[in-house]
C-alpha cells in the first residue's frame, strides 16, 4: 500500500545542508492505522509531508498504491493529492470564507467532480462527524473541535487511499481530542481506512494499530498492537 524505501531528505540552511531523513524504509498495509511518534526535529512531519506529496525527497522512493510519488511532476502530485489522499492538520486549515459544507466539498470542487451522489456523501459525512445543522455556518465561526471534525470530513470526502493526519489533536483539549480520535477509529474500522498519524501524544498514538518511533531522522522502534507487549509498552511510555 505505502512503501517507503531509503527515503532521504536534506534541507539547505544557509550554507549548511541538514539531513532530516536518513534513508528511511517503511511499509504500511492497506487499512492499517499507523501513528508516528518522536521528539521535535526527529523528521516525522517531514516524512508525512513527503508521503503526502507536499514535498519531494532528496533520495529514495515513496510508493502509494503502486505509484511513485517522487517520480511525478508537480502537477501530477497535486492531482494525486486531491484524488488519493486526505489531510488533517493540527490547526485545522479550513478556508474561512467557506461554509462547513463548502469546506468539505473543496477537494471535489478542485477536481471538478461534485456530483449529486457526492453531495449525498457530504451530507452523510456531516452527520457522521456530528455537525448536523451547522452545514451552512462559516468555518471560522466554529469551535476548535468542530473545525477539526470538518477537517476530517473534508479529508474523507474523496474516499482517499490514505488519510494523513499531522498532530490532529495538538490544538484540542482532552475531551475534544478523544472525540476526534474516536472518529478516526470509527472510519478506520468501518471503512478499513488507511491512516497515518503524526503525534506527540501517546494517548492519541494508543488508538493506532502500530506505533513507529522516530529519532534523529530514522526509525528507532516499531511497536505493533498485534505484538503482546503493546499495552505494556504504552503503559511504560506513559509512566
Amino acid at each position, binding site marked *: 500500500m505505502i512503501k517507503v524505501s531509503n527515503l532521504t531528505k536534506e534541507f539547505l540552511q544557509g550554507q549548511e545542508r541538514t539531513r532530516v531523513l536518513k534513508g528511511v524504509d517503511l511499509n504500511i498495509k492497506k487499512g492499517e492505522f499507523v501513528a508516528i511518534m518522536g521528539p521535535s526535529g526527529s523528521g516525522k512531519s517531514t516524512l508525512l*509531508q513527503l508521503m*503526502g506529496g*507536499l*514535498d519531494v525527497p532528496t533520495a529514495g522512493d515513496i510508493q502509494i498504491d503502486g505509484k511513485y510519488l517522487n517520480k511525478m511532476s*508537480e*502537477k501530477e502530485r*497535486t*492531482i494525486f*493529492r*486531491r*484524488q488519493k489522499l486526505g*489531510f488533517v*492538520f493540527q*490547526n485545522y*486549515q*479550513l*478556508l*474561512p*470564507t*467557506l461554509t462547513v459544507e463548502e469546506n468539505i466539498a*473543496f*477537494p471535489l*470542487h*478542485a*477536481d*471538478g467532480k461534485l456530483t449529486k451522489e457526492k453531495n449525498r456523501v457530504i451530507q452523510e459525512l456531516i452527520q457522521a462527524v456530528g455537525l448536523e445543522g451547522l452545514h451552512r455556518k462559516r468555518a471560522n*465561526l466554529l469551535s476548535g473541535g468542530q473545525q477539526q471534525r470538518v477537517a476530517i470530513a*473534508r479529508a474523507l470526502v474523496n474516499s482517499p487511499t490514505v488519510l494523513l493526519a499531522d498532530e490532529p489533536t495538538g490544538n484540542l483539549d482532552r475531551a475534544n481530542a478523544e472525540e476526534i480520535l474516536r472518529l478516526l477509529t470509527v472510519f478506520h474500522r468501518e471503512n478499513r481506512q488507511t491512516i497515518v498519524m503524526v503525534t506527540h501524544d501517546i494517548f492519541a498514538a494508543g488508538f493506532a494499530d502500530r506505533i513507529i518511533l522516530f529519532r534523529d531522522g530514522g526509525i528507532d522502534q516499531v511497536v505493533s498492537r498485534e505484538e503482546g507487549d503493546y499495552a505494556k509498552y504504552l503503559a511504560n511510555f506513559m509512566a
Partner: protein
Amino acid sequence: MLNIWRISWRNITHNKKRFFFTLFAIILGTSFITAMLVADRTTRDVFNYYTDMYVANADYWVLSDKHTYPEKMIEPVQDDPDVTNMLLVLQKQAFFELEDDHSLSQRSVRIIGVSDQNSPLLVLPVIEGSLDNKGVILPKTVATLLGKKVGDTVRFEGLGEAKVSAIVEYTQLLASPSDWDSAESTSFRVLVPLDMLREWTGKHDEISYMRFQVNGDGKDLFHSLQQQFRGSGVFIQPVVADDLQNNDISGLYTFFYIVAGLSMLVSGFIVFNTIYTSVIERKKEFAIMKSFGYTQRSVSKLVLIEIVLLSLIGTAIGVPLGIWLGDLFMQELLSMLQFDIVYTLNWRLPAIMAVTVGVLFPVLFSLFPIYHAGRTSILLTLKMASQSKGSSRPLLIRAVVGLVLLCFVFIDHSVTYAAVLAGVILLFPLLLAGLSRIIKPVLNFLFHYAGSLAAKSLFQQINRNANTAAILGIGISVILLLGAVVESAPEGYEQEIRNTYGGDMRLTSEAPWSTEDITKLRSYDGVLGVEPLMEATPITWETVDGVSRQFSVFAVSEDGPALFADQHEEKLYNRLKQQNAVLLGERAFDEWGGEIGQSIRMNTPNGEQSYEVVGVVKTSHYSGYVAFMDEERLKEEFGWTKGFDLLLTVDNEAASSIRDRVWSDFRDHLSKVQTVEDEIESTTSTISGMNELILMLLFMIIGLASIGTANTLLMNTLERVPEIGTMRALGFTKQQVRNMIIAEGLLVGLSGVIGGIAAGLILIYVTSQSELMDGFMSFKLPYSNMIMAVISGVVLSLCAAWMASQSASKIDIQSSLKEG
C-alpha cells in the same frame, strides 16, 4: 546605536514586491504631478513670452479709427524730451506674387513697414540673416511655405519686390498661417522697412500707428495727448500685455490641475492601502516595541520615517521622470495648438513644488495608519483579541450614505460633483458584491471553481477591494466627463458662434466701406444681406483691482446683426441706449471682477471714461472677452466713428464664389475674409485635438490605478498565504490558484470600470442638465472613451492580477501551513 533610517529601510524593503508597487505608485503619481506643473508653468511662460515680445518695451501707442493718419499728428510725441524710443508703423494689405497657383485669399499678405527693424520696441528672434533695414523679414513658417531663404526675392503684386534679409521665429506681430488651407482665411504677415513700403504705396507722410517708450510713467504726456487728440480720430492707448482676446486657454490650466489632483488621489490611495495593511500586519511588532517602552509617538514616528523614506525615493525618481514627461506633453500640446512655437521648459519651480507635494502627499494619505500604529494596544494585540469578527453594519451605513449623496444629482450646484464622486466611492462595496453575484456564472465558466472562490475571497477584504475598484472608477468617471466636455464643446461652440457671429461672412477692410461698396455687395448673387460692423480696438480698461487690460468694443443695435445672445436682449438694447452704458461678454466680466451696476473705466478715443456695466452676455467674439455699446453712443460718447467690417448673410452654396469675387473686386483695400465656418473650424479644431490628450490621460490614470489593483491583490494574497497553502495541499493546482487571483483582479477591474462609467455618465448627465452650464453641453455617450476605458481597465487589471497571481502560485505549501 540603532540607526532609525536603516531600520526603516529594512522594514519597507522587507516585502520586496509590495515595496516595488508602492514605490512605483509614488513615482508615477509624483511624475504625473510634476509633468502637469511643468506643463502649466511652461504654457503660461510661452503665452506670456509671446505677449511680452509683442509689447516689447513700448509704453504707449498712438492709433486712429482710420487705417492710417498723417505722421504730423505725432509731432508732439516726437518733440517730447521724455520719449526715449519710437517706432513708426505703416501697414498695407497686398498679395504675394507666386509661381504656384494659389487663390487671392491664399496669397493675401499684410506688409508691415517699420521705421527701425532693430528698435528696442520690436523683438524679432532671428534664425537666419540680419535685421539690416533693407530687406523683407519673413517668419519661419512663411519662409518654409514659400520655400524662401535669406537672399531670395519676394514679390508683392502691384507693389514691388525685396530680398529676404532675415528669417525669424514665431512672433505675434508676424503670426501667419503655416499651410495653404489656413491661408484661405488668414493673411500672411511680413515685415519691411517703412521707407520701402512708403515708396511702394506712395503714402510718404502716413502711418498706421506709432509706439513709444518714455522716461517715468508718462502719465502727464498721456493725458495731455488724450486731450490733444480728442475728436481727431487719432487716439493714444497705453500698451498693455493682454492677449486674452486671442488665447482662451484658461480651461487648459484647469485640465492640468484636474490631472495632477487625480494622479495624487490615485497614488495617495495606493500608499494608504499599503501602509494601512502593513501596519495591521505589524501590530504584534508594535505591541512588543511598546511593551519594551516605546511610546505611541515613537511607534508612529517609526512608521512616519518609513513613509518619508519611501516618499523621498519616489520623489527623487518621479520628479526627473515628470520633467521628461512634461516635455513630451508640451510637444504634444503645442503641436495640437497649431502654433509653430519654440518653448523653454520651465521645470525649476515646478520641480520644487513637485518635490514638496511628492514628499507630503504620501505622508498625508498615511496619517491615519501612522496614528493607528501608535495606538496599538499591547494586551489586545498580544492576545490577538483585536481580530474582531466583521460586521455588515458599517457596509450598510456606507451604502445608505452613498445613496443619500447620490441624490445630489437633483441639485444644480458645483458641490454636486464632489457629492456624486463621494457617493459612488461609498457605494462600491455594494457594486462589488452585486457584480460578483451577477457574473458568478461567467467566472465559473471561465475559471471553474477558482472563479467561485474568487467571488467569495473578495468579501474577506471587501472595503479594501471596493476602494481599489473605486479609485479606478473615479479616475475613469472624471476622464469620461472631461472627454464628454471636449467632445461636446465643439457643438456648444458651433452653436454659440452661429448664434452670435452676426452673419455668415465677415469682410475686413483697410479703409471704411463706402455706400457704393455696400450696394455692389448687395447686388452679388447669393448675398442675402449686408450689415456694417463697427469694432473699436484696442481699447484699454481697468479691472476692479486696477490691472490694465485691453479688448474690443463692438457697436450693436436692435436692428443690426446679433452679436450676443441673451434671454432679455430687447431690454439690454434699451439699457444700452442710456448714457455711458456698456455690456460685457462673460469672460471680460469675470476678468473685470465687478458687479452689474458698477462702472468700468476705459481709455476711449475721447479720453478716459467710466461706463456702467448694464449686463453680461454670451458671445463667441473673442471668446467673450469683449464689450458692446449702442452704435450711436459708440460714435458720440466713445469717439469711434469708423467701421471697417461688414457682415454678410449669404447663401451657403455661394459662399466660396462670393469669397473669390470679394477678393477680386476689393483687392485694393480688403484685408480679411472670414466665414462663420472658418471661425467654427479654427475654434473647434484645437478642442477636437484635445481628445487625443484625454485618451492618453485615460490610459495613464487607468495604468496608475492598476498599480493599485496589483498592490491590493498582492496584499490579499500575502494575507491569505495559509489559506492558499491549504488549497494547494488539498489539491488545487498552481494554475487554479492563478485563475482565482486573476478572477479576483477581473472582478475588481470590472467593477471599477462599470462603476466608473456609471459615475461618468451621471456626471455627464448632471453637467448637461445644469443651468450653470447653460446648455453648453448636451448629454451624449462618449463611446470611444467608454470603449477605451473598458478595454484598458479590464486588460490592465488582468495584467495587475497576473502579477499577483504569480506570487500566489509560488507560495510554499509547507511553510504556509506552518503559518496557519
